């Protein structure tokens, strides 16, 4: 029967060509949309590696010309004051490159026998606790690290897997920066699970946390972890406390959660637009298919009548029509898959190949499901044709 249906499709190739084209283009557009959405959603669902709820930030904008001792005193006092606030759970300082800030500090070299490019995060001894980092090996910085012979650093798991796979990393030394900004070598004291600081939709980069004491001039972004259920006036209290301690008014307090939402919006908007467009496309394809099938069946009533007369059951008729459309769809999908496969083979975009494979599977699945749904009712109608009636219509 399958061979017979294939013969029928082949003999009607001119009539089926438009339907094939519709399926092919629908597949290609859906593939592109799904590849975009899947790659973004896979990144979105990968862990951030830090908390955003109840974390507030304040950039203190300390000029580089400021006196280091005064800055150290002011920052020590600020941390003390913050920690005495009943609403505050913990507080810390980091450099300008912190989650959703849009700032990046990166370095890299191939002096260690491997090539790498890593983001640098200047963080004090309290940052891991405040940000909620997950340390999977070793430890976070302590004040004793100030006296360390080598700059103590923590690297991210991704960095470890890419550059130190299968090797012990704790207490190992490597050249972080060939300009010597961090001495000749830095010493790895721990590994952080994840740190997707660019945003929820940004692929995680290799990351290195460099110890910078809380008294340093280089870490002037305050991170404050508030306790759950703080009152709305907490922000005003915090604002007054920072202003009175730092004697400055040119700072603003922002919630990390707000920054997260804002940074993700630039991806959500085009993604929702694309999803809407593909939704309309799916509806259009469905209506088109439904129309074509309905028309086909009305044009082939006498053929249906004849088949019923020579022994086809209603199920045979439904099966034939559904199989015909599925076969044309599969041809369209296979041609589409051929073109879609060129994307991962030729690495046309900076997207992981697995995303293309998922996009191929999902597009093929959605189109097949759509075709099945659209074919179901017309095929059922075809099966209900009364042979005695239609054979006398000509």
């Amino acid at each position, binding site marked *: *029967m399958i061979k017979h249906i294939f013969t*029928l499709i082949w*003999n009607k190739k001119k009539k089926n060509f438009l339907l094939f084209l519709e399926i092919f283009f629908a597949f290609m557009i859906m593939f592109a949309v799904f590849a975009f959405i899947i790659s973004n959603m896979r990144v979105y669902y990968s862990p951030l590696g830090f908390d955003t709820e109840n974390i507030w930030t304040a950039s203190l904008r300390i000029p580089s010309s400021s006196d280091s001792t005064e800055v150290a005193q002011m920052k020590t006092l600020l941390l003390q004051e913050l920690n005495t606030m009943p609403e505050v759970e913990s507080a810390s300082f980091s450099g300008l490159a912190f989650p959703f800030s849009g700032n990046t500090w990166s370095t890299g070299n191939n002096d260690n026998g491997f090539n790498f490019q890593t983001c640098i995060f200047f963080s004090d001894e309290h940052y891991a606790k405040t940000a909620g980092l997950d340390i999977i090996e070793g430890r976070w910085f302590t004040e004793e690290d100030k006296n360390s012979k080598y700059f103590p650093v923590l690297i991210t798991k991704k960095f470890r897997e890419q550059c130190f796979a299968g090797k012990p990393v704790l207490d190992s030394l490597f050249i972080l920066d060939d300009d010597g900004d961090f001495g000749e070598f830095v010493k790895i004291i721990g590994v952080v699970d994840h740190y997707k600081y660019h945003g929820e939709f940004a692929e995680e980069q290799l990351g290195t946390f460099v110890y910078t004491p809380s008294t340093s001039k280089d870490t002037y972004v305050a991170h404050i972890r508030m306790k759950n259920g703080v009152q709305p006036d907490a922000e005003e209290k915090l604002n007054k406390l920072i202003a009175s301690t730092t004697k400055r008014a040119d700072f603003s307090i922002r919630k990390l959660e707000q920054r997260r939402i804002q940074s993700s919006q630039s991806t959500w908007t085009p993604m929702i637009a694309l999803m809407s467009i593909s939704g309309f496309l799916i509806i259009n394809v469905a209506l088109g298919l439904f129309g074509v099938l309905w028309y086909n069946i009305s044009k082939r009533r006498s*053929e249906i009548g004849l088949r*019923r007369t*020579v022994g*086809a059951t209603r199920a045979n008729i439904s099966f034939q029509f559904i199989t015909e459309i599925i076969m044309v769809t599969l041809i369209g999908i296979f041609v589409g898959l051929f073109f879609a496969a060129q994307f991962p083979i030729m690495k046309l975009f900076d997207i992981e190949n697995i995303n293309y494979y998922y996009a191929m599977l999902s597009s093929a699945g959605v189109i097949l499901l759509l075709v099945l749904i659209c074919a179901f009712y017309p095929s059922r109608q075809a099966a209900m044709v009364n042979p005695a009636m239609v054979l006398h219509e000509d």
Partner: protein
Amino acid sequence: MIKLQNVSKIYRTKTIETVALNNINLEIAEGEFLSVMGPSGCGKSTMLNIMGLIDEPSEGSISIGPNTIKDYNGKPIAKFRNENLGFIFQSFHLINDLSVIDNVELPLLYRSGINGKERRAMAEEALTKVGLKNRMKHFPGQLSGGQKQRVAIARAIVGKPSIILADEPTGNLDSVMGNEIMDILLDLNQNDKTTIIMVTHDETMARKTNRLVRLFDGSQVS
């Protein structure tokens, strides 16, 4: 043997009731060649459809051989039609997108236990019988009316049915082609002992058959 007992067919709408067949009692013996005549709209085709089990009588019953037909839509009746009945139509009803051989193979597709090679061999044999083996790769659009009807006959006999129902098989053909078709049907009846029931408007053709039944306004008049 085909037996129609008190068969009536009434088409009802909200406003009108049309009696297509009125209390028909008819027995057709095995191997008989029966022709049915009557003016247009007298119920000839309706009677043929009921005997072909593609239409259901409003009243009465039909028996074919030992079987009295009760369910007209189920799988067993489709199987019965496929194995025992062959159909020939005035307008041929060939599938234009299939070649001659594929058209002839059609009934065998719905019969279990026959593989592709066997189907092809049986279809070729049927086409040889109607003298069209050399045209088996052609498409219906490339054939004359007489050739199309011979393909339809090959399709009707490919499954070796015991009964052939022919609805005005020569109606769309000129007299030469009509005679050719009639000769094939007579040959099937005489040599293969196939029971044939033929609806026709052509008195000459009807006279060549064993028995003639006339219908008028849904009733049997002779």
